[in-house]
């Protein structure tokens, strides 16, 4: 097998063909959550719902754990997983905190702190970007 489009970026796995193959069943289940009736069916009997979508053992375990890093490792795609997270009322800060091993407050503070990043050198004199 050829080298897939792997990322050397720390903390980042690109959703490439290899992940798309690995995660197909899990992502298909998550895609079904676009419909409210499917979300209810999942909540009513998660195990039966996972069997219907033929999740792998790794995927089912990741779903049970509700750990985003485990779901990603099992081939989950961020865009589809977001629908799974939505079922449990988790927003992007909850998920960010969980993945980075910190509290929601600390995660949000880190986002705010991005304002202290240095400006692009030209930003202050060429065409000003207001912010």
């Amino acid at each position: 097998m050829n080298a897939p489009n792997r990322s050397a970026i720390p903390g980042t796995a690109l959703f490439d063909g290899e992940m798309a193959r690995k995660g197909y069943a899990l992502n298909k289940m998550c895609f079904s959550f676009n419909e409210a009736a499917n979300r209810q069916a999942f909540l009513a009997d998660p195990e039966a719902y996972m069997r219907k979508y033929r999740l792998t053992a790794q995927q089912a375990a990741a779903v049970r754990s509700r750990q985003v890093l485990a779901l990603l490792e099992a081939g989950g795609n961020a865009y589809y997983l977001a629908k799974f997270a939505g079922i449990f009322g988790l927003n992007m800060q909850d998920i960010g905190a969980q993945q980075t091993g910190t509290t929601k407050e600390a995660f949000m503070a880190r986002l705010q702190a991005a304002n202290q990043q240095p400006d692009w050198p030209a930003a202050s004199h060429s065409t000003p970007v207001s912010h």
Partner: protein
Amino acid sequence: MARLIGGLATSHIPAIGGAIAKGLQSDPYWKPFFDGFPPIHDWLARVKPDVLVVFYNDHGLNFFLDKMPTFAVGAAAEYANADEGWGIPTSPPVAGCPDLSWHIIRHLMAQEFDIVTCQEMLVDHACTLPLKLFWPNDAVAPVQIVPIDINTVQFPLPTAKRVYKLGKTVGAAIQSWRSEQRVAVLASGGLSHQLEGERAGFINKAFDQQFMESMVSNPEWATQFSDTELVDRAGTQGVELLMWLAMRAALTTAGAGVRKVHSHYHIPISNTATGVLALEVLA
């Protein structure tokens, strides 16, 4: 021929829909974001586009991995919104412009773009939120749309070079459309953000600023980057800046150039560095 009058760009985040629904525009968290829009509202009230070509990325509402397009062009008379899985407020259907859709489709096919045509298409927050942000006083924005989806879900993404060519070709198509309509192009996406992995929360202010400046004066700047390089600089979802690139490329063959109407940059909304931009085509 139709007149291509300018371009718009904005970040999109599902939470913005919630803020609008709850009327939080003056809330301290939201105000610095919504403050980016009034000068553009004034401009839009003056130039009044009739049709918007919307470059956006589907977030797993209309497209799945069983049939994942690279570029998909809407050709419907109406585009329905839907619950995306989060119980977010849905929008009323948006009117399409099938005449322009099919004109663009013919033009793209003749220029060797291998597009997917969509006579039925659910559009998500990436397509509907910009309409609420740019036309806040209208229950339904007074425009018809042609949505064009660009894949950001599955790698490899279309290269930045290819997206630029797509935008340029769409711009040429608009200008060869036999119509009296006034057309604007809109980009929905970015700027730097990353939702997943240990790197979640990644934001790159200097890159965003340079990218926004390139949108005014150096439109091909970002075409130098591969998809992986864009992720490195802008984050896994920051690659949505490809939408801006397509929008900007569409303007490169119109008029005598562009002038910046207004731009605004704010960190953060949700996990995202947000940008908004309006460009006017100079006659």
